[in-house]
């Protein structure tokens, strides 16, 4: 224990003597949270819409006003010429063109049927289908009004659907993203710092002097893990504070539980970092290896895309993805108020993970020159 304290003292001296360290701990997470929480969103807050109303009738105007009235649509063009609207899509200045044909109102009254055409920029497929869904919902709403107006008498109301969104009633995307991004911040800090640290000692040769001392493996590993564990835990607290202040994310469950899980999760991540640094001889190698795993882990973690909709083999890979476990857990705790018994499955996985990774790290670290 005494030996570990001496190592900790030395590690902290070195960490805070590194001039990049404080910005990395305090500035980076705030910037990442602010940028990512706003940018990484599937919400279509501003569907840039170009309207071609060739009918210019009360009915067509009413339909248009429905779109104007929705906060999701922003009018970027209004013309009588479809070619003009098409140009907007080609240039990328519009996401959606709504074309109302000339005889829209006439057809509605005479034929009881009219059509409009939607042109959606579908370069981003998921965004396009969202635009489609939003727009159809508005048109359906308009339809319903028409039906009641025109033939108000004895038409049965179609099935009414009442929505209630659980756990995120305002469908606020940030509420969903911010906890996940927090996990990323903490992970990147822990993974990189531990991955770099031992390799750095190898590269400058100081590890040789350590290896001729009677230091025990577990003392060395503990001395290398604990500083970054403390920094990452602090980072989580700091990030949660920023998230609460700037995004007012809900914290339904127990904060204590979040930190409890984080404590175990970080051991797993730090141990992975250490394993990488025992495999690498140079910081460059360690950097590439760390990135390799980080990119796969992050993109498959369920932060951006639901793990449930991944193919089976991908979900199988996710068994060794610590980030996936923690993102799921932190969302469950913060948004749903999950307690220990709800997360016991994921937590058990993390505990096993941490134990195995740590054992491998201790085993891989060889006290040789």
């Amino acid at each position, binding site marked *: 224990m005494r030996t570990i304290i001496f190592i900790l003292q*030395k590690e902290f001296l070195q960490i805070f003597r590194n001039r990049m360290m404080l910005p990395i701990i305090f500035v980076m997470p705030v910037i990442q949270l602010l940028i990512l929480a706003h940018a990484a969103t599937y919400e279509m807050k501003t569907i840039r819409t170009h309207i071609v109303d060739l009918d210019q009738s009360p009915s067509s105007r009413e339909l248009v006003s429905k779109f104007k009235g929705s906060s999701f649509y922003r009018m970027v063009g209004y013309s009588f010429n479809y070619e003009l609207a098409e140009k907007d899509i080609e240039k990328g200045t519009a996401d959606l063109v709504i074309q109302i044909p000339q005889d829209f109102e006439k057809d509605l009254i005479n034929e009881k049927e009219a059509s409009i055409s939607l042109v959606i920029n579908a370069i981003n497929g998921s965004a396009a289908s969202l635009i489609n869904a939003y727009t159809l919902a508005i048109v359906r709403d308009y339809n319903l009004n028409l039906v009641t107006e025109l033939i108000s008498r004895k038409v049965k109301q179609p099935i009414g659907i009442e929505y209630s969104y659980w756990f995120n009633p305002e469908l606020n995307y940030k509420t969903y993203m911010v906890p996940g991004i927090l996990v990323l911040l903490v992970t990147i800090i822990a993974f990189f710092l531990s991955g770099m640290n031992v390799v750095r000692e190898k590269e400058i040769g100081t590890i040789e002097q350590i*290896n001729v001392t009677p230091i025990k493996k577990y003392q060395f590993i503990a001395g290398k893990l604990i500083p970054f564990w403390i920094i990452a835990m602090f980072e989580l607290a700091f990030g949660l504070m920023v998230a609460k202040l700037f995004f007012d994310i809900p914290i339904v469950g127990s904060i204590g539980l979040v930190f409890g899980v984080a404590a175990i999760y970080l051991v797993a991540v730090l141990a992975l970092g250490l394993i990488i640094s025992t495999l690498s001889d140079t910081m460059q190698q360690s950097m590439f290896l760390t990135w390799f795993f980080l990119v796969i882990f992050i993109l498959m973690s369920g932060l951006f895309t639901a793990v449930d909709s991944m193919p089976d083999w991908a979900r199988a890979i996710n068994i060794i993805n610590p980030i996936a476990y923690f993102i799921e857990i932190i969302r469950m705790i913060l948004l749903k108020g999950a307690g220990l018994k709800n997360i016991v499955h994921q937590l058990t996985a993390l505990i096993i993970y941490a134990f195995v990774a740590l054992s491998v790290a201790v085993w891989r670290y060889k006290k040789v*020159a």
Partner: protein
Amino acid sequence: MKTVTENIIEVEMLVKKFGNFTACRDLTFEVKKGEIFGFLGANGAGKTTAIKILCGLWKPTSGKALIGGFDVYTETNKIKKNIGYMSQKFSLYEDLTPVENIRFYGGIYGLSRSLIKEKTALALHELGLEEVKDLHVSAMPLGWKQKLAFTVAMLHEPKIVFLDEPTGGVDPITRRQFWNMIYQAAHRGITIFVTTHYMDEAEYCDRVSIMVDGEIKALDTPDKLKEMYESQTMNEVFLKLARG
């Protein structure tokens, strides 16, 4: 003839191979307690490899080696408690001050805090580092660094100190000071195992071995070696042996 128990290092038919390359071939020698043992050889002769084995950093391919009575195959941790080591390449922390380096290694070797303080004060005084004690090691000249590294290697009063080219690139005055430190340590009964390129330094050793291509070609006191090879200086002895 001294008894076997007085040999603090005993090496017998020690071999280290890297693939097809034999870095050390059938090394056999012993070092007596309190002796300054010079381990000479050209670059690439296998000196550093041998030292790393004796320090418990590498396992030999075959042969026997006992350091302070402990086996290099199975008792490396006991060996490490009893030796000090100073690498060819400066390997203390450059971003720490001398005091912090001494405290860290003192702590690792299990010295008490008061003893660490005492040793630190003594070392700063002896090395004349009092004025620069708050400076990072990176800002110190090489000669000072090497003296500091030697002090750190000696912190826990080891029985044996391995010095791998401790004076490489150091000016003659500092080299002389360095050798004074070595003499003082030997005087206290610490065994010194030193490699060097400087043949004048070889004259300071009690006994020297000369390694050529992984083998020990000669081993005796400097005077006897000079006599044997009909040379005036160790330099001549070395050249005669190394050129074969």
